[in-house]
C-alpha cells in the first residue's frame, strides 16, 4: 500500500508522517507535491501539520485553494481515507470536507504540550484499534486549535458519532472539548493532536500508533474481498 503525504508550501510535519509510516509501520509513504492533480494511485491521503502558506490570513485558508485539493476532494468523495493533522485539520475545515472552523487558542498563545484525550468513538476507520473510551496522551502543538461549530452542527456531530477524540483538560477552548472529528461518512478525519509524534517509546509515547494501525486495518479489510 502506498500512502500520499501532501506537501503544501510551508508544511513542516510532512517528513515526520513519512517517517512514522515508514519506520513505525514499514509502509511506503510518498511526499506528494501540492500541484499534483491525481491521487488515484494511493491507498490513503494524509494532510500534515505545519504552516501552509505561512498560515497567512488564517490556518489552511490559502491551502484550500491549492491545485491538489480538487484531487483530495475526489479521493474523499470516492470513499478514500483522508486524515488531516493539525494544519491538515485546518485545511480540511477550510475546504469544507469537515464541518466547523479552528480559531485561535483561547489563551491566544501557541501551546505545545502532551494532551490527555478520550477516544470517544472507537468505531471509526481511524480509531478502531483503540478501546472504547480509552485515554491516550498525544502531543499538541498549535496556535489555532480552538474548534468551533454552531449548536446545530454540534448536535449533528454527536448524533452521527462524528466526534472521535476529546480533550480531558481542554487546552484551547474547543467547543465540547473536541480534539478530532470525522465527516459523516467516516472516511475523513481531522485532529489537532499529533499521532505521528507518538509512535516510538523513545520519544515518550506510543499512543498515536492506534491511529495508523486503525487505518491499516481498515485498508486491509477493504483490499481483502475475493
Amino acid at each position, binding site marked *: 500500500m502506498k500512502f500520499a503525504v501532501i506537501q503544501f*508550501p*510551508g508544511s*513542516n*510535519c510532512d*517528513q*515526520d508522517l513519512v*517517517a*512514522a509510516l515508514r*519506520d513505525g509501520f514499514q509502509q511506503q509513504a510518498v511526499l506528494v507535491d501540492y500541484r499534483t492533480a491525481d491521487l488515484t494511485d494511493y491507498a490513503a491521503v494524509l494532510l500534515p*501539520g*505545519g*504552516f501552509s*502558506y*505561512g*498560515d*497567512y490570513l488564517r490556518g489552511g485558508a490559502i491551502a484550500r485553494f491549492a491545485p491538489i485539493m480538487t484531487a483530495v476532494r475526489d479521493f474523499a468523495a470516492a470513499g478514500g481515507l483522508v486524515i488531516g493533522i493539525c494544519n491538515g485539520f485546518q485545511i480540511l475545515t477550510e475546504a469544507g470536507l469537515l464541518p466547523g472552523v479552528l480559531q485561535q487558542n483561547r489563551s491566544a*498563545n*501557541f*501551546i*505545545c*504540550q502532551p494532551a490527555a484525550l478520550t477516544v470517544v468513538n472507537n468505531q471509526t476507520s481511524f480509531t478502531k484499534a483503540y478501546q472504547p473510551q480509552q485515554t491516550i496522551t498525544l*502531543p499538541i*502543538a498549535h*496556535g489555532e486549535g480552538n474548534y468551533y461549530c454552531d449548536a446545530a452542527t454540534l448536535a449533528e456531530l454527536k448524533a452521527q458519532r462524528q466526534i472521535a477524540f476529546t480533550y480531558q483538560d481542554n487546552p484551547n477552548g474547543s467547543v465540547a472539548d473536541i480534539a478530532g472529528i470525522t465527516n459523516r461518512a467516516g472516511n475523513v478525519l481531522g485532529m489537532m493532536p*499529533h499521532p*505521528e*509524534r507518538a509512535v*516510538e517509546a*523513545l*520519544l515518550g509515547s506510543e499512543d498515536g500508533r492506534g491511529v495508523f494501525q486503525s487505518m491499516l486495518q481498515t485498508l486491509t479489510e477493504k483490499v481483502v474481498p475475493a
Partner: protein
Amino acid sequence: MIEQTATAIKSSRLYQQWGLTSAEYQRIQELIGRLPNFTETGLFAAMWSEHCAYKNSKPLLKQFPTSGQRILQGPGEGAGIIDIGDGQAVVFKAESHNHPTAVEPYQGAATGVGGIIRDIFSMGAQPIAMLDSLRFGELTDAHTRFLLKETIAGIGGYGNCIGIPTVGGELAFDDAYAANPVMNAMCVGLLDTTMQQKGQAAGAGNLIYYVGAKTGRDGIQGAIFASAEFNDDVEADRSAVQVGDPFMEKQLMDACLELIREHPEAVVGIQDMGAAGLVSSSAEMGAKAGYGMTLNLDAVPQRESGMIPYELMLSESQERMLICVAKDQGAVVEKLFARYELDAVQIGAVTAAKQYQLYAHGEKVADVPIKALVDEAPVYQRPQRIPAHLLTADPQQYQPQITDAAAVLTDLLQQPTLASKQAVYRSYDTQVKTNTVVAPGSDAAVLRIRGGRKALAMTTDGNGRYLYLNPEIGGQIAVCEAARNIVASGGVPLGITDCLNFGSPEEPESFYELAQATKGMSAACKALATPVISGNVSLYNESNGTAIYPTPMVGMVGLIADLALITTQDFKHAGDAIFLVGQTRADFNGSELQKMLTGNISGALFDFDLATEISNQQLVQQAIRAGIVSSAHDLAEGGLAVGLAESCFGRQLGATVEVAMPASWLFAESQSRFILTVPAAQAAAFSQMTGEQAQQIGTVTAATDLVIKTNTETLTLDVVTSKQQWEGALAW
C-alpha cells in the same frame, strides 16, 4: 536619502555618523588612493564595524583553541562543523540579536532566529534544533514584561512556523539587563559531510546569484547599529530592525538544500546575507576565495522603488542568500528556485582582478580592492583597566543567616531565574521533526540521530554574575557549566560556540572584562578539549554609560554514543541511592541566594579548580557508561537544595537526605558538583568506584516529601505543592 559627494562627506564628516573614526577614514583614502564616494564610504562603514570586522575583539579571539581531530570547519564560515562519524557532522553557531530585541522585541528575536538558521543551512546542513539564551531586567518592571512577552512570541513565531524545534536555552533576570536585554540564538544542524559548503566565490566567470526575498529598506545599517551604544535617541534607530518571514525562509531553506543535494556541481559557494547584507556576503565570498567581483545592482530584486546603491548594499532584509554558481549552471538554479516560487537572479560575476565593483544605471558606483573591505580593517589593542568594584571586592564569602531553610528553598524556587520555564517552552514547538528525546527542562536537550544509535546533547550556559565578580574564573565556569550539562545528559562534549555580550570595548574596564573572560574561556576550552568552532561578539551593550554584566553565552554540543546512555535529571525509582559528586563549601558570592537575601551580588567570586572539574566530569561519564546511573543532574544556581528539588519534581518522587554541613550550605553554589542516583543494589559498588569524589547522601522515596537533615536543622519540602509553586512562579 541624499547622496553627498566625496568632498562633501569629507567636510561634513558624515562617516562619523556611520561609525568610522577620522583615522579609519584616512586609512580608507590610503587604501583606495582617493576620497571614497558615498556608496564606498557606506560599504567601508559596514564592513569595518565591530560586528563584521571584530576590530576590537580579534586579538582576544585569537586565544581560543579552534582546531581538533574532529573539527571540519572552525570560525570564519557561516558556522563551525564537527565530525561525528559515519559520514555525518554536527554544525552549529550562535548569534546575538540584542540591539534589535531591545528596540522591537518580536521582530528582533524572530530575525535573530531566522539569521542563525540561514548560517546553518548555508553550510549544507539540515537545521535540527534551536536554543535561545535570554537575559532580561527584573519582571517587576512593566517594560521588561513587555520585552519578554514579545521576545518569546518572536522566537516561537519564527521557529514554530519554519518547523525547527526550539529545544533549550536559558532565561535569567537581573537589573543589569534592564536597558540592554540579551537575545542569543543558537542553531544546530546535521550535515551529510559530502554536502559541506563554504561561503566562497571562486573562479573567474562564475556567476553570482541572489536568491530569496526581495530587498527593501529594512535593517539598513544594522551592523553599525549593533556596534554602538544605546542612548536616549534610540527610537530614531527603529529602521535598523529587520522584519522576518519564516514561511519565506522555509521555502528558501528547502530550495537551497535541494540545490546542494541534487546539483552539487552547480554550487561553488553559498552564504547568508546577514549583517551588512549584500556587501558583506558578496565581499567576503570573493575575498575568501582570492577573487574580485562585479555586481549589477539594477538586477537586485527590490520591493521598494528608488533605492540607491547605498541602501541596496546595506539593507538587512531577511531571507536572502548569495550563491556562487558554476558558469554553465545558471538555468539549473533558476529552474529549481522557480519551483519554490522564489527569486533567483544573476546579479554579477566573479572576476580575476581583485576589485569589488558595483554598477547601477549603467554607471560604476563603487570600485575598491576587495581585500580592503574585508581584511584591511584596523585592529585595535584597546587599553584595559581593572574595574573599581574588583579592586575593592571583599575577599570574604557572604555569610547568609538562615533560620528556616525550607522557607528559603521555597522562595528560591520561585525566583524568576530559578522558576520552571515550562510556561515559556509551552509556546515553542519542541518536537517537530520527531527527534526530541529529552525536551526542555533537563540539563541538556537531547535529539536522536535517525538511522542509528547516536544522539546529540545541547545546551547554553553563562552566568554573568560570576563574571561580574571575576571575569576570568566566570569565563571558565561558563564553559564548564555547559560541559557539566552535556555530561549529566550522557554526552561527551565536542565543542562550543559563543556569543560574547559585553560593554563598550572603548571603555577600559569593559575591555578588561572581555579580555579576562576570553582568557578564562580559552583555558577551560583547552582543558576540556572543546574547541570554539563559531560565534560572534556583541559589544556596546550599554545604555547611557552603564554596561550589562559581562555575559558570554556558551553553546555546547555533545555526542551521546548510544541511545541507552541518555540520562535525565529526574529521579526515577523510589529506593535509588542519591550520590553527591564534588565538594560543597561556603561559596555564596554571586549566588542566587545572595541576590535574593541582599538584593545585590558582591564580594570576590569563590574559588574554582579546572582539574577538579574535569575529574568530576570524568567520573560521571564513567558511571553513565557503566550503565548504572538512573539520573544525573548538574548543580548550579541555588545549589544542592534546588538541585534535589528539581530532581524530585519530574516524577513527583521524594527523597530523604542527610549532609554534614550547616543548612545554609544547601544553597552554596560550589562548582563541579552533580547529583547522581543509582539503584540500591549498585550503591556499594558505586561507592567503591568513586572513592572520595562522591558520597551517598540519601535515598529516593515514594513519599512525596524532600527531607534534608543538616548540622543545624532538618528541612522538609512538600514536593507536590512546591512543584506547583515552582511551575507557576514565572508570569509576565
